[in-house]
């Protein structure tokens, strides 16, 4: 009776209970993530690299616009802590500029691919039937085309610049998230809460945007992490095959492939700093992705 007489505090308690449950889920994801030492290391490394690339140029000034052949290929000195490259750009400054472009292309392509892939997969999985069959066969067809082949083909046809590279990488990167989210949607759409949305007259848009996508967020985040790493590696491969960004723009892949032509001249500063940065970035992203997957995967917890 007392409870009925005084329902006032009851409602807020209910709400705060739900909020707490939600927060606890977020906290447990964070907890599992932080427990993984490799992931923590990866996260710290990634933050340092991002700061180096984007804030570095504020403190470290170097001419990255015009070349200076009179100082080409000089070994590290006081003025150039990592030496200069084959046309006289300061390598340290170039690492920052190139890193900006590599990271920007990687993240932008992964985000774009994630966004499009999620929409495609969710729509395909939610509607099912003929729509699903058609949409997924398109994904299958694109997936079976060798990515590097088509990237090379595109590079031969279109002008290579940052925007085009991003779009080209994203064009193939959306396929995997589309498949993953479609699989997730197939199981989610039979859940009671989706049935409830339908029962209350909610449309497909509401089911997809308010329920299915938020529930699939773990899969999406994990996949985007791996996509960024793969994009950076794909850029390196493209750079090696001769389709990097033309100077004065730069990215790590183009720098490394340019540098390895001096592998026998003993000019290590053109190869190792940028190579190690690529490895560290890709590794850090993979560590983070792995840990996030474990963190979002409830089944693996407590093992």
């Amino acid at each position, binding site marked *: 009776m007392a409870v009925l007489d005084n329902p006032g505090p009851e409602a807020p308690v209910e709400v705060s209970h739900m909020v707490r449950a939600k927060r606890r889920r977020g906290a447990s994801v964070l907890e599992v993530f932080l427990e993984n030492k490799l992931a923590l290391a990866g996260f710290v490394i990634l933050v340092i690299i991002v700061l180096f690339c984007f804030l570095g140029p504020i403190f470290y000034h170097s001419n990255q616009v015009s070349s200076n052949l009179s100082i080409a290929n000089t070994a590290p000195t006081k003025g150039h802590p990592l030496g200069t490259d084959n046309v006289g750009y300061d390598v340290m400054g170039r690492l920052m500029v190139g890193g900006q472009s590599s990271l920007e292309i990687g993240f932008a392509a992964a985000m774009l691919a994630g966004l499009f892939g999620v929409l495609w997969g969710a729509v395909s999985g939610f509607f099912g039937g003929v729509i699903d069959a058609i949409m997924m066969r398109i994904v*299958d067809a694109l997936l*079976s085309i*060798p990515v590097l082949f088509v990237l090379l083909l595109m590079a031969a046809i279109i002008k290579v610049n940052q925007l085009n590279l991003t779009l080209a990488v994203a064009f193939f990167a959306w396929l995997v998230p589309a498949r993953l989210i479609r699989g997730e949607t197939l199981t989610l759409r039979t859940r009671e809460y989706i049935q409830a949305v339908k029962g209350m007259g909610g449309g497909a848009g509401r089911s997809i945007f308010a329920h299915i996508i938020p529930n699939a967020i773990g899969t999406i985040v994990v996949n985007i992490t791996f996509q960024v790493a793969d994009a950076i590696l794909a850029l390196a491969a493209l750079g090696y095959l001769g389709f990097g960004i033309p100077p004065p723009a730069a990215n790590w892949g183009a720098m490394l492939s340019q540098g390895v032509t001096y592998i026998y001249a003993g000019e290590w500063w053109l190869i190792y700093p940028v190579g190690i940065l690529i490895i560290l970035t890709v590794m850090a992203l993979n560590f983070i992705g792995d840990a996030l997957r474990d963190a979002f995967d409830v089944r693996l917890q407590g093992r």
Partner: protein
Amino acid sequence: MGQAIVVVILVSFLTFVLLHLLPGGAARAVLGVRASPSSIRQFNVANGYNRPFFPQYLFYLDRLIHGNLGYSYKLNEPVRTLLAMDLPKSAYLSGLALFFTVIIAIPLGIYQAVRRNKPDDYALTSLSFIGYSMPTFWLGLLLIAFFAVFLKWLPPTAPQTATVGGAISDPKAMILPVMTLTIVGIAFFSRYMRSSAIENLAQDYIRTARAKGVTQKGVLFGHMLRNAVLPIVTLLGLSVPALLSGNLITESVFNYPGVGLLFWTATQTRDYPTLLALTLVVAIFTVLGNLIADIAYRIVDRRVSYV
């Protein structure tokens, strides 16, 4: 099966569209920018490019079905001949690499699973991550710098030969390219093997086997292996296109005359008929690889059926 056919038809359509996206059309790509309008017209009529889009596509399909993959005007040979020459060499290189990858990665993954979260597992995990994160061309060039230039043990290039027999007769020159591909492959495969083995070791049937008094070796290889190897079967199926089309990067680093190098040379010379034909062929291999993986999956795991 039916799905595979639909996908192949879609892929052929996509490559056909790509052919039409070429700046100036196929005629300009083949005859060059200075071609006269009359020779372009002649070329278009001869190849059926003056017809509407869909009849052209059907014409293209008809030629494909009869085994005509197009003609390389740069190398002055039918693409089919080029493929017949380079495909066995690519298959030999990638096949060797895949063989070593599998026989090393499976035991390695199982070992890591057994030693989970111990220092040696961490060390091996870190190593495999480095292998995975390293751009392949850099790995290849480092191996050349170390084994060929510094130690002078091995030749820096792959066998320079026109036939697969030539490649087989020069095993020393194959070591570095195979090593490059194998290192990358192990980094990739052992991760999957490790997590699959970990997942299986936590299952009830392993506990039952242990309770029966089966030895560690018996548990791992008699009970767990067949179940844990399933993801590797899928990965192997996905490796089929690489097996047949070669590895573009490794082949160009070591100048190994396989399909990958053929493709790369074709991008350099803008040999569009070759590029598109190879893209289509590799895509078909991919579809076949997926199909083979499905079938192999069923042979390894009798519980799976596709009825």
